[in-house]
């Protein structure tokens, strides 16, 4: 009873707290970049940690390029190892950004407005981290351009029936489209920073990046149209990218991989882990940048937690389906591999996965827990670990497929760990630099969201504005 009452009250909660107006939005989000206010001490802490981890990545890469992929734990039968686990994990994290910026836009979800910018940024950096892994896993990464169709003297072209080639196109397209979507959404905000700039460097850098945007109504109309269509393209794109990633596995004839459930199962898992990352980033941002806490409210965190929970349960339905199909399908190999997955030498990883992705998120049923920063942070971190283990469990299946003569073991080396931790460092460093130099919330869209009496347009949405 009280809970129903509380949730009705929450529906009426404003998406923007406090009394705002057009100027205040700019002061809260944009001006601290211009005034060069001191960053919170936590910014320096996270930047330093990220930078140290990034250095670890550089060290690991130099050694990798010097010796070769033999420094990793990969071998037959588990020839993919950490590289593909981290690739899928990172790209999955990226998908929440596109979901927020594109799908929630089409669905008229106004709560996306203040979290879309940093989520899109998260997407771009996550895809950069993801793209790193297949490149360095190639053994001879300086031939990376062999992945692309280009005329060459040997007359060799990509093999178009291979999911790995589809993956190249999917990830490249995804990165490019995310980048341009992010950039044109930010152009008006860059113009604001240009207009507020106090020194020459700011004027030049923000001025060039803003391309001379002056907010003309004609330009806005075109801008809105492009933004809307990009959202319409981004929606199937995000599904296609993780579908193609799942094809990397599902097209192979490995027991438990060769399954039609893989594409939806992967997409749900991607959004689950992505929203977990959104929450992990949003909670400290709210805490350490008090000015933005008025725009990223508890309501946003609550909604993000609900999406995370919903998609997480879809993923768990996928686990149940996998086990059921293996048993009901009466395939000796499918069922045998399932038993190995659950109780074999790597069974512990399966149960970590179930704990992290199924058991712990059940706490999110409680509104109290969804409204508690510490709990939400812990559950989201656990979900991220769980989704990493999901890919681990899938990849490690290679160690126990078909007949025992094909069996083997896999253990990561210190260099696997160094590369993985390093990719986290790359992400953290880039994200900290983003917080320092670019507006972390879309000022334009927040202004539009403000009620009429505060100078806004009542959240007049892009859809109504873009004929």
């Amino acid at each position: 009873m009280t809970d129903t009452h509380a949730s009705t009250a929450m529906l009426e909660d404003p998406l923007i707290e406090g009394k705002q107006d057009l100027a205040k939005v700019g002061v809260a989000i944009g001006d601290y970049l211009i005034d060069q206010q001191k960053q919170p001490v936590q910014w320096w802490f996270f930047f330093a940690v990220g930078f140290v981890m990034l250095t670890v990545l550089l060290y690991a890469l130099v050694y990798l390029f010097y010796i070769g992929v033999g420094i990793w734990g990969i071998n037959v039968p588990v020839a993919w190892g950490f590289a593909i686990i981290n690739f899928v994990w990172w790209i999955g994290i990226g998908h929440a950004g596109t979901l927020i910026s594109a799908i929630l836009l089409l669905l008229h979800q106004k709560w996306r407005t203040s979290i879309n910018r940093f989520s899109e940024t998260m997407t771009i950096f996550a895809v950069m981290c993801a793209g790193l892994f297949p490149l360095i896993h190639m053994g001879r990464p300086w031939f990376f351009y062999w992945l692309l169709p280009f005329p060459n003297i040997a007359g060799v072209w990509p093999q178009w029936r291979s999911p790995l080639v589809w993956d190249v196109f999917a990830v490249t397209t995804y990165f490019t489209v995310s980048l341009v979507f992010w950039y044109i959404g930010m152009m008006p905000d860059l113009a604001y920073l240009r207009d507020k700039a106090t020194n020459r460097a700011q004027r030049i850098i923000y001025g060039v990046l803003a391309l001379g945007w002056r907010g003309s109504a004609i330009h806005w109309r075109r801008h809105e149209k492009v933004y809307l269509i990009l959202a319409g393209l981004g929606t199937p794109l995000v599904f296609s990218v993780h579908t193609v990633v799942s094809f990397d596995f599902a097209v192979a004839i490995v027991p438990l991989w060769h399954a039609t459930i893989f594409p939806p199962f992967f997409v749900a898992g991607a959004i689950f882990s992505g929203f977990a990352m959104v929450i992990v980033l949003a909670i400290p941002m709210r805490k350490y940048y008090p000015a933005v806490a008025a725009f990223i409210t508890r309501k946003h965190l609550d909604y993000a937690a609900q999406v995370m929970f919903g998609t997480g349960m879809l993923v768990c339905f996928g686990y149940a389906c996998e086990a059921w199909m293996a048993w009901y399908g009466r395939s000796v190999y499918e069922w045998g591999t399932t038993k190995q997955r659950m109780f074999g030498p790597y069974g512990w990883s399966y149960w970590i996965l179930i704990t992290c992705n199924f058991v712990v998120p059940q706490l999110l049923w409680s509104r109290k827990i969804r409204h508690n920063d510490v709990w939400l942070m812990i559950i989201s971190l656990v979900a991220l670990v769980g989704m990493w283990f999901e890919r681990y469990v899938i990849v490690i299946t290679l160690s126990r497929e078909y007949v025992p003569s094909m069996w083997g073991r896999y253990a990561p080396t210190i260099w696997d760990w160094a590369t993985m931790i390093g990719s986290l460092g790359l992400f953290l460093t880039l994200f900290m630099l983003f917080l320092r130099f670019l507006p972390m919330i879309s000022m334009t869209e927040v202004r539009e969201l403000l009620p009429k009496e505060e100078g806004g347009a009542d959240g007049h949405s892009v859809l109504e504005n873009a004929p």
Partner: protein
Amino acid sequence: MSEHDDSAPAVYGLLAQFDTADKMVDATKKANEAGYTCMDCFSPYPVGEAADAMGFKTSEMGPVMFIGGLLGATGGFFMQYFLGAYQFPVNIGGRPFLSWPSFIPVTFEMMVLTAALCGVFGLIAICGLPMLYHPLFNVPSFKRASGDRFFLCIEAIDPKFDLAVTREFMAGFQALEVAEVPE
């Protein structure tokens, strides 16, 4: 600009400043009714009614992106067909060379990629950007067009434009100020 007077500084137009979007839209409607055709509104967030009032009902971006996407999709498909069936035919599991279902992912990705790039570069090009200098930037208060103010500019190239008369006309708006924009 046939009666251009050499002694006066060249004028780009007259710029009225408003504190709400509604006032800007009202002024635009009035200017449109009064027969002005060359004008533009400037606002920190999109105000669709302003574009409507100026008679710019729909933008060109839809067809641009549609054609871009269509070219990308057909180009992507035939690239795979030509390369996979003629240039470098490889027998993969006995599939026909035109095994179109396996060409769909790349076709789709190429469609999205070209549509998006045509949209974004088309937007920038059709808007005439990058244009780092614009006469409007000479008006100091115009800086607030990206923040908390709304502007309507009636341009001097308008056949009906006359500095004194138009200024008189714009004084009838609920504007905070009407500024002359030097060329």
